[in-house]
């Protein structure tokens, strides 16, 4: 007890104006009570995870940015050469896959936000009506979210197989001459994959909206019913506006999913002919034969910049709220 008091006074002496009465601020009081060993422990507790996270995530992200302005074959550091914007120029002007990939990422987002997201919301609203068997329905729609994207890719390949697949078998297109090649046809394959992606996304959105709907104050519904509003009016004017925080999360999650899309496409056709994505182009530079590190990094930087446009405003909004709380 006595040692702590002395520590407290010594620490307090380092805080310049004693009249500022820091004692009212509880958390700062904590700080003054800490022993040297506590400080060391805290430093380690926060430091080790931070070092790991920064080294593997942020240092590599920054390294991507730096490497994007160089050429490097990966053999020895002395082969790294500064080339300025050369990689980006090549990427924007000469790479036949780049603009289609950007376009496909955009299409991916638009499809996810226009089809499975409202569908998930619709299902959530229906299931929120304290309906019988709600759990059973929920599980059916949610099941795909539990599966790995790779497994989803395999399952849908079975559905789309031209010869043996469910769709062609049902519509009689599984005979020579009538084949519809869902996976191989560059005009079809992106849409075929997006059906599989939407299959998963709907369940994910449904759960997020169900959680959001649980937070809606029941008295709002009652008031609206008493005012004689019908179901649609209640939803549009009362329920939906209160789902604003959920909508923000849904928007961010959907954009990020569209930028991260990879596994499904890779399993389907490795992103060839019609299904190029930015993530696929980056990965091809690593696992393909050609290892053009600078060039691959330039694509990664494009992906990073698009991501930051979403991540930064979202974090600012989230953390501003947090600081107020």
């Amino acid at each position: 007890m006595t040692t702590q008091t002395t520590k407290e006074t010594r620490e307090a002496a380092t805080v310049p104006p004693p009249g500022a009465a820091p004692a009212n601020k509880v958390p700062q009081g904590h700080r003054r009570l800490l022993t040297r060993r506590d400080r060391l422990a805290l430093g380690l507790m926060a430091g080790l995870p931070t070092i790991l996270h920064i080294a593997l995530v942020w240092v590599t992200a920054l390294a991507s940015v730096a490497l994007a302005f160089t050429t490097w074959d990966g053999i020895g550091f002395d082969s790294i050469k500064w080339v300025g914007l050369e990689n980006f120029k090549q990427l924007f002007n000469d790479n036949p896959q780049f603009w289609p990939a950007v376009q496909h990422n955009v299409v991916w987002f638009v499809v996810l936000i226009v089809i499975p997201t409202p569908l998930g919301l619709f299902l959530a609203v229906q299931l929120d009506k304290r309906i019988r068997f709600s759990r059973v329905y929920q599980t059916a729609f949610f099941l795909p979210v539990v599966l790995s994207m790779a497994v989803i890719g395999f399952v849908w390949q079975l559905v789309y197989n031209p010869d043996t697949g469910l769709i062609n078998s049902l519509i009689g297109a599984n005979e020579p001459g009538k084949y519809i090649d869902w996976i191989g046809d560059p005009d079809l394959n992106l849409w075929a994959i997006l059906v599989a992606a939407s299959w998963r996304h709907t369940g994910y959105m449904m759960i997020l909206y169900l959680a959001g709907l649980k937070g809606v104050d029941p008295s709002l519904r009652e008031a609206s019913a008493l005012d004689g509003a019908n179901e649609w009016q209640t939803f549009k004017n009362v329920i939906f506006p209160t789902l604003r925080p959920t909508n923000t999360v849904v928007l961010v999650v959907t954009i990020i999913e569209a930028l991260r899309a990879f596994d499904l496409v890779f399993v389907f056709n490795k992103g060839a002919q019609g299904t190029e994505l930015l993530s696929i182009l980056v990965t091809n530079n690593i696992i393909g034969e050609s290892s053009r590190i600078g060039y691959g990094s330039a694509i990664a930087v494009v992906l990073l910049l698009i991501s930051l446009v979403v991540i930064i405003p979202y974090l600012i909004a989230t953390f501003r709220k947090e600081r107020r709380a």
Partner: protein
Amino acid sequence: MSTGTLALKKRAPVRPARILLHLFLAGAALAWLAPLAWAILAALRPYAETSEKGYVSWPDSLSFDNFTNAFTQSDMSHYFVNTMIIAVPAVLLTLFLSSMVAFYVSRFDFRLNLALLLVFTAGNLLPQQVIITPLYRMYLLIDIPGITMSGKLYDSALGLVLIHVAFQSGFCAFVLSNYMRTLPHELTEAALVDGASVWRQYWQIVLPLCRPAMAALATLLSIWIYNDFFWALVLISTGENMPITSALNNLSGAYFTDPNLVAAGALLTAIPTLIVYFVLQRQFVSGLTLGANKG
């Protein structure tokens, strides 16, 4: 007024609209399960039969032969073990490390802790491909003799564990710090006055109170890490060392002429996640919404 309230509280009577809704939901749910049902049906039938009669046909015989063949021929038990070697330490380490960061950020008011949390959260939102090229090079450069066959971080379980921990701790730190912030400050203050060290406050007071959030995150993390395809695809080169999801990719390449066998393999891969989900459904869903409704 009071009758209106009462009517809302009772379960709605059976109305035509309700029946219609049930019909719609049941139909939609069945349609939703159709791709999985199709895979199951294919996996239960021998390839010889389906290639002769077509896939949309009445099955003569159903058996688990494809499942047993997929399991034995492709050495799946070996890949399941590989996944466990990666997933178990990764989940435990992620929870341990991120809970310490969360404790630091939420219980002590240091100047930088908001920035710290921001760094963690933002890191988790980046697409993996943004960091993969330098990471891959880094893993090739780092020697860890004796622990792995390659002698490098590349192509090792340790390498995968590290990147999973680094990447996922962003999400967990955020969720746990929010959770810890709701715990009353008096708890640790009392302990502090009694002379409990910071470590004891964390380990004996705060951490046990976080059990519900930890359970939810553990469920979520095990499914995510088990399902990982990308990190293993790029950072593991030897077939021997692959976890189950990327091994499945090889299996489908080798047996693409027998879709029934591939279907069985894919379904076998999904079984552990389905079990985790059905047993720990509540934790899984609450974990997902705990983090996602952070806005």
